[in-house]
């Protein structure tokens, strides 16, 4: 079976040789192809090449078209990204510097025509051509209720979200939702088949359950309305969200849940049951200082909780660059071993 077929089997509960194994290697790509981060991330072909090479070397199931989260801000007018040789690029120029900027803030009529989109489009085109028929190709799109955090800073967004002015907040949310709708359609059209819907404000760790229901859910519904939830993965940026799984099933129809490493995996499995796919993730920050033996033991623990009954995927967070390669290899070897159905 191909990795894409193994993923489909895990989603519908049909037989497969093993569980799907996802490993999110994003920042490692620049090193892989020997380019400084800024040049690497401006070149969609280089990102695709690195993803293909790393997938071949390590054997995990998925590849990524995501360059870095700040790309969305760049499509929307951010003019400066702070690159780092040892980690994730960071938004250095806020698109919305004051509340007055919200009225002036505009979503491009066609985001695929923007300069910032071109490397993503190029990367996806290569990945879809090379492995689109056989492998999960992941793309990342930030929910309308979270996107403002990278446009105006998390503290300013939290303040606007909670304290208003609410007309301005809703105007910004409407624009961000319009952007999301365009982006997810463009990602699908370019060949992405796993769409990670990043919605930290959809986690009760960010705002209370009542606020998720009344202030976030309506916008998530709007985000997803045109294209539906096919291929969409619910993800709250590693924040726990078991408390809203039933709500998301009922209101959004999303059937795949990518948990954070601190989530109660057994509880999530029981909440999801055979209605959808549950992804248990390893704490890849602790992997920086673990030995390969500790890494293996943790993979075993996670899979022993998640695998019984199927409908389970093993995954990682965003795999910091500081993780020793021996731990990456051991994690994947253990995931294939303990995740085998044979």
């Amino acid at each position, binding site marked *: 079976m191909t990795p894409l077929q193994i993923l489909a089997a895990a989603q519908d509960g049909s037989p497969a040789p093993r569980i799907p194994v996802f490993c999110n290697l994003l920042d490692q790509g620049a090193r892989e192809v020997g380019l400084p981060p800024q040049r690497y991330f401006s070149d969609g072909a280089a990102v695709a090449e690195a993803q293909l090479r790393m997938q071949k070397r390590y054997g995990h199931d998925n590849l990524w078209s995501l360059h870095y989260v700040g790309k969305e801000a760049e499509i929307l007018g951010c003019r400066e990204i*702070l690159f*780092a040789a*040892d*980690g*994730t690029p*960071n*938004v*250095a120029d806020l698109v919305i510097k004051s509340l007055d900027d919200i009225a002036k803030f505009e979503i491009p009529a066609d985001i695929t025509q923007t300069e910032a989109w071109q490397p993503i489009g190029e990367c996806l085109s290569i990945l879809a051509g090379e492995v689109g028929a056989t492998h999960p190709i992941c793309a990342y799109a930030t929910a309308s209720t979270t996107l403002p955090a990278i446009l105006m*800073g*998390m*503290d300013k967004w*939290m*303040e606007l*979200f*909670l*304290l208003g002015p609410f007309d301005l907040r809703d105007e910004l949310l409407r624009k961000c939702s319009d952007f999301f709708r365009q982006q997810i359609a463009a990602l699908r059209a370019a060949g992405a088949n796993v769409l990670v819907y990043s919605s930290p404000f959809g986690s*009760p*760790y*960010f*705002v*209370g359950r009542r*606020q998720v229901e009344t202030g976030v859910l309506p916008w998530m519904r709007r985000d997803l309305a045109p294209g539906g939830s096919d291929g969409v993965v619910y993800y709250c940026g*590693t924040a*726990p969200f078991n408390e809203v799984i039933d709500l998301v099933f009922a209101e959004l129809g999303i059937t795949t849940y990518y948990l954070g*490493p*601190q989530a109660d995996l057994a509880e999530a499995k029981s909440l999801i049951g055979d209605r959808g796919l549950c992804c248990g993730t390893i*704490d890849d*920050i*602790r992997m*920086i*200082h673990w030995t390969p033996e500790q890494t293996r033991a943790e993979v075993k623990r996670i899979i022993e909780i998640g695998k019984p009954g199927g409908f389970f995927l093993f995954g990682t967070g965003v795999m*910091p*660059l*500081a993780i020793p390669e021996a731990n990456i290899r051991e994690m994947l070897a253990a995931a294939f071993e303990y995740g085998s159905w044979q």
Partner: protein
Amino acid sequence: MLEAYIQAYNDAVFETDKQTALNVVNQALQNGFSAEDIVFKLVIPAVEQMMAFIERDPDANLAQHFMTAQIAADVTEKMLEKFSKPPEMVGRVVIGAAYGDLHSLGKRIVSGCLKSLMVDVVDLGCNVSAERFVDAAVAEQAQVIAISAMMVHTAIGENGSLKVRALLKERGLEDRIKLAVGGAPYRFDPELYLKVGADAWAADGVNAAKAIVELIREVKP
């Protein structure tokens, strides 16, 4: 006597309802309590209760942390203008986001809580170099340097907390200036603060203020 106000105030904060919290404070003022009473007998006990609550219930959400800090800082700032004499401050901290880090929410929560606990806060902003942290702490006679890092490489990288520790050691300041860290990576690995040379950490911004006050008390005569 202020118990009912504390309860009503914290209920409002818990619901992230700033206006109701401010109404509680105004009601207490109208009923004859002084600005000093509001800060020392209402706001500080309320923040301390919230710290205890958040420590017991790690599921308390980020919005509650944020509102705890914002409301407490706003009320304290307004009340300080009405104090009959300037209050004695607990100590001073220089705070900022680590070198290469542009995330500001965490330090804003910590700063808000610290201000309400009568700690002077010198906010150095984001993307702060190790040298600037140490130079500012010396110039401001701060007892604590507090570094927020929301990304793994800014938490463990050689230009962050590790370098601040090295500079404190090199300049013989370790007995006078303590180092606190916080941010998402530390929540995933509770031993990480030791690996980056910090003296303390906390899992959330509200309790970070408590940890910083304890550090101040360690070094301040």
